[in-house]
């Protein structure tokens, strides 16, 4: 038997496929666009979420890495007032002069203590008038704080000032209002020395908090100097000490704070360690990813359907060419391979362009927000392969259909 085996070199196959693609360049470009959008959306999603996650977590990291909190072991979280027994115990473990004790430690930027003042059932009001149409008296949280607390919370003021040691030592009847509390009490300025009542006691408002980066509950509270609170509402011990450290010093300060605050019984204090930033990062990325990845995948599927459709139409249009190639000696697999290579090449091109476009989007978004763009290195490099696989899968059916054509039928149909 004579050796009869058809053959087609990969080089010839590639050049034929490329020539086939450039037969109708506009159509090819529009077909590739589907994959470009899909891959571009995927890359941009992964990049933007990573960048945003990194940014958000960076902020969390910065806050978390510079915060140490100290509480009595038995103390609960903020919320209802401490019991008498607890207060006695707290009095035993946390002092009020935290600034003196902690600012001596190298690495402490600011420190302050706070405690809920026991004002009983006293309501807070701003003016002694009775307004039958509106609420003028409120149940508000009343907090005793040390002068250093504002710095420890990274707080800012809308207007006025924060109290100092003098206010506390003299037990001046002054308060600072949280932004929410001030709004409820209709106090917007302090230059006219507005007053509020806590029960029957009158206090001068000397400042309004704009924002705090920690202990956000204070924005709805009335804040008194610790000395004032102790004089008016009895013995009171801090329920929490907040320490702002330099970046990188948190762990060191955490190990020293308990001894500095209570040298006799440091074990009675619980020192808050910074939370694990990796968990937060994963959660943020996960939230952003899951939404946009679905969109990207949908785009990719649409792109694949586009390639499949166009390849199928191309097969039908090129029936005569298929017949000719079969007459010239092409085996079925050569026909299938040619269309497969064409669809794969379209997917590959879409993957390359999409990866480039997606990366540019990540850079552009980051630049517009003044963020550092973050993108896993494997994403842009894997994208062309993903595109190629999409093209390959999309081209399977049309290619098999082309290969199944009988040469006689194809020649006749293509006449």
């Amino acid at each position, binding site marked *: *038997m*004579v050796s*009869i*085996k*058809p*053959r*087609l*070199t990969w*080089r*010839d196959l590639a050049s*034929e496929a490329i*020539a086939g693609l*450039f*037969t109708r360049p506009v159509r090819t470009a529009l077909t590739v666009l589907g994959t470009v959008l899909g891959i571009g959306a995927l890359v941009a999603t992964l990049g933007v979420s990573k960048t945003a996650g990194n940014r958000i977590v960076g902020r969390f990291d910065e806050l978390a890495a510079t915060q140490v909190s100290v509480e009595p072991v038995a103390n609960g979280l903020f919320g209802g007032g401490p019991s008498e027994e607890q207060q006695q115990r707290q009095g035993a473990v946390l002092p009020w002069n935290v600034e003196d004790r902690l600012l001596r430690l190298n690495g402490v930027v600011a420190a302050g203590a706070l405690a809920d003042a026991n004002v009983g059932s006293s309501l807070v009001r701003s003016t002694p008038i009775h307004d039958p149409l509106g609420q003028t008296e409120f149940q508000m949280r009343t907090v005793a704080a040390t002068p250093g607390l504002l710095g420890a919370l990274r707080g800012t003021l809308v207007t006025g000032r924060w109290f100092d040691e003098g206010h506390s030592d003299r037990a001046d009847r002054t308060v600072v209002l949280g932004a929410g509390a001030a709004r409820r009490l209709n106090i917007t300025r302090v230059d006219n020395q507005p007053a509020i009542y806590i029960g029957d006691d009158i206090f001068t408002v000397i400042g309004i908090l704009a924002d705090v980066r920690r202990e956000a509950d204070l924005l709805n509270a009335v804040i008194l100097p610790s000395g004032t609170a102790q004089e008016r509402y009895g013995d009171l011990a801090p329920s929490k000490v907040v320490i702002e450290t330099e970046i990188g010093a948190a762990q060191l300060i955490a190990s020293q704070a308990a001894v500095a605050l209570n040298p006799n019984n440091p074990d009675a204090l619980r020192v808050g360690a910074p939370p694990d930033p990796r968990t937060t990062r994963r959660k943020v990325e996960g939230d952003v990813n899951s939404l946009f990845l679905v969109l990207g995948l949908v785009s990719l599927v649409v792109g694949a359907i586009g390639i499949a459709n166009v390849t199928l139409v191309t097969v039908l249009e090129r029936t*005569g*060419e298929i*017949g*000719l*190639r*079969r*007459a*010239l*000696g*092409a*085996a*079925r*697999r*050569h026909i299938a391979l040619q269309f497969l290579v064409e669809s794969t090449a379209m997917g590959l091109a879409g993957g390359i362009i999409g990866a480039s476009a997606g990366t540019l989007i990540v850079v552009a978004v980051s630049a517009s927000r003044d963020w550092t763009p973050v993108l896993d290195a494997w994403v842009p490099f894997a994208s062309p392969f993903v595109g190629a696989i999409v093209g390959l899968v999309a081209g399977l059916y049309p290619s098999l259909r082309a290969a199944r054509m*009988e*040469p*006689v039928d194809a*020649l006749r149909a*293509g*006449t």
Partner: protein
Amino acid sequence: MKAARGNAGAGAGAVEPVHPVVELRGVGKVFDSEPPVVALDGVNFIVNLGDYVSVVGPSGSGKSTLLNIVGCLDRHSSGTFLLDGIDIATLKDGQRAAVRGQRIGFVFQSFHLLAHRTVEENVMLAELYRRGDRKGRRERAEASLRKVGLESRLGFKPSRLSGGERQRVAMARALVASPSLLLCDEPTGNLDSKNTEALLDLFDELRADGLTIIVITHDEAVSRRAQRRVRIVDGILTEDDLTVATAASAATSSAAGSSGTTPTSGGGSW
């Protein structure tokens, strides 16, 4: 009915052994339709090396079916078909494709040129699926185009060519791979008389070079130029006229008869 004859080329002074390129013995083709259509019925047909045969017949008589089977584009339903001694029925689909690529050149009525490729690329396409040297493919295409007088049209797209030129490109494509058999399906169907004449002159030259040619045609003028003429009606071969060229081939045909390689008799044979 007459017995089939072959010859080794007109004008050959010496007697040469006859080598059958195409051998059909009792070949039938039935299309599975309702009712089944018998396109070829017990066809015995032998074409020897160097033969120039025209196949004539009315529309639907089975001419194209015969050409498709001889060109390995379609499978026969019964009988035996040997091409260059190879029993085509035993070949798989891919092997039949290889036989087409390596041994057969096709010329179609509608040219079947790729519109977006140049003339040269269209011709080079014929060598794409052959086992051969990739090097020199361009040179061979140019030589083939030179043979049909189109060396000045290498970079042209088919749309810029006349009908006659397109058919010449198709001829160049069919010839570039040096086939042992040239199959032409109504090659002059879309040509004017001048281009038809030029194409027939080319056939004469090719025949003189020893190429085996089978031409399917409606055109009496075209069929008369062939060395042998076969008529097919309702799937049965009914006639085999020898043209003027037979005078020269008579000696060879008698030699062929003695060599025992040309056969047969019976219904639909000669």
